[in-house]
């Protein structure tokens, strides 16, 4: 069950990040000042992929809550690092980003670490 929750948490995080990345690249550069943040908040309400990304983020957080209830914190937090692996894979496959040898090695090391943490 805990691996299902990890998979759900990581998949929802990756989906949320990809949706945000896709939508924000179309939206152009935004300001982090108060007025800029208000505009980002309005944008969330108007753009369906951003709404979907918030829904994914909620699923990810609820999965994390369930995970820390049934398993140790020393498993739940490091296991969430699996998102580095999945996001690198999806960035290459879906966003067609350039993924070099160093980044590929890093993603594989993360995956090995997650397997060990759960062992």
């Amino acid at each position: 069950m805990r691996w299902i929750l990890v998979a759900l948490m990581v998949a929802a995080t990756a989906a949320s990040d990809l949706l945000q990345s896709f939508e924000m690249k179309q939206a152009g550069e935004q300001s982090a000042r108060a007025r800029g943040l208000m505009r980002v908040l309005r944008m969330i309400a108007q753009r369906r992929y951003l709404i979907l990304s918030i829904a994914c983020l909620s699923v990810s957080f609820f999965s994390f809550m369930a995970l820390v209830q049934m398993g140790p914190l020393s498993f739940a937090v490091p296991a969430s690092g699996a998102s580095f692996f999945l996001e690198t894979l999806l960035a290459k496959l879906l966003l067609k980003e350039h993924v070099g040898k160093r980044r590929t090695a890093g993603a594989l090391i993360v995956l090995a670490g997650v397997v060990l943490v759960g062992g």
Partner: protein
Amino acid sequence: MPRVRILKTFAVLVLFIALKAAGNLSLAWGMKHLGESASANPLFYIRAMLNPFVLSGVATLIVAILVRLVLLSLSDLSFVLPVTAVGYVIATFLGKTVLHEEVTASRWVGTVLIVIGAVLTSSTVHTTARKEDRQA
């Protein structure tokens, strides 16, 4: 980079790591003492937030997100992601010392591998900023 800005970046970084660790710890403590098992029902999570430890954990993690935004305005994501990966080790340490979890040698090794992998993956994040913007 001016010294004041470096100090400010460091202070915000430490604040973010501390808030994230405290938020996760409070959330984990609250969830483990709920007296009700997690389910797929969203109402369970709303009810869980009535627990003071869960609520303070969620509130602390929300503040941590805002502090991270400030951190991102001070430094690059390719600096923030690898440096904050130390949070995995801190969470494991807190799990062992505060929540009295059993942390085996393989879990420690796995945690360190995740940090190394995260550093390798994220410190080479391909920037999409325009060349002239990066040079500015």
